């Protein structure tokens, strides 16, 4: 089924994660959860979205970049969102460790209004090998990789003949990031992907073999 063609489904993200090279003791990340796409709205609190953005930011310092776990430490989103508001206005001097959080929080608080409509959309070109023309999609329309996948499927289905002849391992969805590198879609949190993706390319054929296959 075409549904399986784009192989960066939810489960695959985690499988890819398992093959990631990282530093850190074995078993240390046992229960690391892939943070659920933060665009899934939480409890109706718009400001919590900014909070999730802040949580998604990867820590690149050693030991291994631990993905922040949803809802841990257990501090209410109401409380977290109050501090994001504060840190944009606060003139109280904060000790150095908090500075980073402040900066990120400022950026995070600034971001949602942009997302809400004034800066509007994030259109990127999507090309598929062998297709006669490209498409453009608005990344902001999608809450996560799953929805994006479904949208791409419906857009490009016609180009690969009928659905039953599609082989999942023949496709890989990739994107070009800010540095110009070709990356596989699905590795990083969706929010981060949205901010670094410049254009997308659906590869097929020999180039893609093995890259996009999922561990079923």
């Amino acid at each position, binding site marked *: 089924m075409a549904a399986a063609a784009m192989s960066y489904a*939810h489960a695959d993200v985690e499988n890819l994660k398992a093959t990631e090279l990282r530093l850190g003791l074995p078993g240390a990340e046992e*229960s690391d*959860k892939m943070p*659920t796409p933060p665009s*899934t*709205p*939480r*409890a*109706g*609190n*718009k400001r*919590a979205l900014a909070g*999730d953005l802040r*949580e998604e930011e990867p*820590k690149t*310092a050693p030991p291994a970049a*631990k993905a*922040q*776990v*949803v*809802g*841990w*430490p*257990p*501090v*209410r*989103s*109401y*409380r*977290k969102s*109050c*501090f994001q*508001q*504060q840190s944009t*206005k*606060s*003139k*109280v001097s*904060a*000790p150095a*460790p*908090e500075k980073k*959080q402040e900066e990120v929080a400022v950026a995070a608080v600034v971001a949602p209004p942009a997302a809400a409509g004034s800066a509007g959309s994030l259109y990127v070109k999507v090309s598929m090998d062998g297709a006669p023309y490209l498409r453009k999609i608005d990344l902001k329309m999608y*809450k*996560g990789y*799953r*929805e994006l996948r479904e949208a791409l499927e419906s857009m490009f289905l016609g180009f690969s003949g009928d659905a039953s002849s599609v082989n999942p391992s023949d496709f890989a969805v990739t994107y070009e990031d800010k540095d110009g590198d070709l990356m596989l879609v699905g590795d990083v949190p969706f929010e981060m992907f949205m901010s670094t993706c410049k254009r997308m390319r659906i590869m097929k054929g020999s180039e893609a073999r093995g890259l996009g296959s999922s561990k079923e």
Partner: protein
Amino acid sequence: MSTTAPTPHPCPIPQPLPPPPIPSHSSSSSSPASGMSEAAEEPDSPPTHMSEDSSSSGDRWTPDLRGGNGGGPRSAPPDQVLENVLESVLEFLTAARDRNAASLVCRSWYRAEAQTRRELFIGNCYAVSPGRAVERFGGVRSVVLKGKPRFADFSLVPEGWGAYVQPWVAAMGRAYPRLERICLKRMTVTDDDLALVAQSFPLFKELSLVCCDGFSTLGLAIIAERCRHLKVLELIENSVEDEEDALVDWISKFPVSNTSMESLMFDCVGVPFNFEALEALVARSPSLRRLRVNHHVSLEQLRRLMARAPQLTHLGTGSFRSDAPEGGGMSVSELVPSFAASRSIVCLSGFREVNPEYLPAIYPVCGNLTSLNFSFASLNADDLIPVIRQCHKLQTFWVLDTVGDEGLRAVAETCSDLRELRVFPLDATEDSDGSVSDVGLQAISEGCRKLEYILYFCQRMTNTAVIAMSKNCPDLVVFRLCIMGRRRPDRITGEPMDEGFGSIVMNCKKLTRLSVSGLLTDKAFTYIGKYGKLIKTLSLAFSGDSDLSLQYLFEGCTRLQKLEVRDSPFSDKGLLSGLDSFYNMRFLWMNSCSLTTRGCREVAQRMPNLVVEVIREQDEMETENVDKVYLYRSLAGARSDKPKFVKVL
């Protein structure tokens, strides 16, 4: 599924039906007494300062001393006099636990109790249907309803899960025209629901919403305007949704005729409002004792409010920042008289954007304070310590971890009467540099011997400090320690935290609520099971080695009512070891453990009066692995309002 048959299985506390949840009106209700009424920490008794007068129901009962029953049908109670006397006696019973017991004596008592119960407490809105509740209890004046599981506060329950108040308001609207008070916690309340409340209850007096969502300033405006007898409006940590261009100036909607406000708390309604309208409202409310404003209120405005209400006992100070540009605002000395004149203030909170220069203004009231909430103010120890040193009567203290171990030492040295301490993290991430540690905890334990409630977020902890607290503070009722790094061991010995938590359950004989963290093996749970006999609420995260942990818990904690578990290595076997306990519990929540649909289904099949919900993310596919399960006893069966991502087994 049978809803009326007695539960046949053996259980420690024999009950014919799973009754509506039995709240414990604990005698040490420190949260309500202090007026903080923060959501998560309340004992099951609702935040109340409502008078317990039963005289308002006097109009229902007329003494019938003639004897006999005037020749009614044979199935009528033979002794009407007895029933009337019973009703008048039962009106003095206020604690729900006592009422539940009385209702089990016989049919006559059941009926009398049902007619005289004035406050209805429903700990899980899905445990019973609204229709059934209003049918049984005819004379209710006050309702407390709780909805979502607590882990919803931490984004673990997807949006749209449920807990809608609408069917309750509809049923009560028809059945309780005299309703005066509604308290809701973790429920979805829409503006339409609020409109229905205003319309259905002409005598409505008190509305309290805690951790709710779904409403906006429009709903608040309707309540303000149409509830002519409103005395109490308390909005605590709700998620109030407003579109920028659809804001309603709800404070202006309080009619001029409303002069009976006693409590107005709206710090969570984070939108601007008409300050003059608030000032006028405060000025015409001589009974106003509690006022908590949002961060849009500056110090200059606060001063005006305080001048209008010198009788306040509880004050939420808003931003605690001047609205003038740098250096242009009023001086500290101009603010001092306001506090000096407020002789009645015992509880201070707010400080949402605090300018520490102004803190000395509160010194005049510090000596009277029993409750102080700095948990939204990022102040460092240097700012806090001078204030703390003045608060020698403090019983409740909420603060950020920026207070540091040094600041906690000052608390220990000054606040010997402290009953409740909550230390929240400024930076709630696992890798942050926590500013408080075992050192602070130890200091507190040595200085605050009367401590009953502690919530402590930290990065570093030792068994020694926890053991010290267990010995120094034997009155502890609630112990919630959150070591933010997952599975972190004792920072000095490198050992698990088993001994620390073990000594807490061993030495704190009044403990009813426990949250654990840090590296914990099954051993910790042998202790908890063995000694935690009074524990009603237990929260586990990233703990335990195997299903044995759960087994020890279910076997040992006979009073367990609420169990929340996340990210722990428990499988279906552990889940099934709780079968004999589930009917005695309000709920069990488990997420990110190793449960499967098969195990959950087995529970559902063997426990007909239990609702077993498997919850997925909104777009997640069904798999055999279960990530989230929420099970609860219920007379109502599977709910009809469940979203697509919830499956009831």
